[in-house]
């Protein structure tokens, strides 16, 4: 099955943007990644099994493109995270603290934490998206949680 590109843009643009930002830490690069991800979707002839398959594929491509972006010579002028955070309106100081703490995690934990807590993916689904073993996902998720707990203290529940 295929979904019209307009529908996919409206449905997933923000999710892809946030996951790309999670990797790039740069809004311009993240927007480029989302754009490239949609262009890749319309460029390929791949037939998808379901809507969830398309969503997972888009997320997987966005993550990989964002990682590639980090390796290229030409990075956009990066806006420091603190400056970008000042443009955001958080609902509470705890939200702001959580956002900042997550963004300071190493990328290998950040992406897994994001897929689990924001995209509601299971460990098995994360393992498929990132093409790594379930045990690897479990370990990184656990370490990421521990780092969050160490910094956020009571703001972050112990949910292992």
């Amino acid at each position, binding site marked *: 099955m295929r979904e019209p590109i307009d529908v996919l843009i409206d449905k997933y*643009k923000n999710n892809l*943007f946030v996951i790309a930002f999670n990797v790039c830490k740069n809004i311009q690069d993240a927007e480029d990644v989302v*754009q*490239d991800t949609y*262009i890749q979707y*319309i460029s*390929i002839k791949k037939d998808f099994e379901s809507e969830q398959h398309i969503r997972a594929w888009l997320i997987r491509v966005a993550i990989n493109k964002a990682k590639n972006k980090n390796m290229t010579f030409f990075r956009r002028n990066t806006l420091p995270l603190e400056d970008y955070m000042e443009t955001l309106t958080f609902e509470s100081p705890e939200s702001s603290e959580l956002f900042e703490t997550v963004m300071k995690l190493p990328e290998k934990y950040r992406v897994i934490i994001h897929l689990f807590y924001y995209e509601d993916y299971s460990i098995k689904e994360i393992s498929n998206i990132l093409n790594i073993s379930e045990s690897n996902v479990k370990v990184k998720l656990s370490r990421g949680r521990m780092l969050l707990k160490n910094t956020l203290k009571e703001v972050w529940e112990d*949910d292992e």
Partner: protein
Amino acid sequence: MTNKEKYKQAFSTMHISDEFSLEVKKMTTTSNNKPKLNRLVASIAACVLIVGCATVAYATDFCGIQRTLQLWINGDQTDVTIQFDGNGNYNMNYIDAEGDSKNRGGSGVFIEDDGTERPLTDDELIEEITAPDVQYEDNGSVWVYWFDQKIDITDKFENNVCYIKLVKGEETLYMTVKYQNGYATAPDRYQSPSSFN
């Protein structure tokens, strides 16, 4: 509030710019109509071309010119970032149809009639990257990829040799494939299996 609710609240403040939808819809429409890369037919009569290709993990120390192109990879039009070092070497990154990040590198030299060698130019390397390719799948099938064409040649081998004519618009290539032993193309006739490898 659960951790998931806290996390979603923190990150739901982020939104892609308002102009994004309009821009990307315009881009995706344009991308559908992009002209395909025209591959020049290389004359192989007066020269010998040696191109090496290898899979590499990362090449962060690879210096040179970086270009972003849209190339046909395994039958899919794909955005590719290629770095050329100006000495006939390239390193490229792309995301394949399965969404996997791929990294490939290679190099090539051109041997003139008098035996002197020179590194391939960037355009010559691109020409080689977009040349017909043969892939042997895990399930035993054999495929030829050329631009948007994917041709199953599994059952076309006789005595471990397959001859296949590739046509794209006005361009024709005659391809000789030796089973798991290389292949050759020419614009005017099939190459003899004994003439290569």
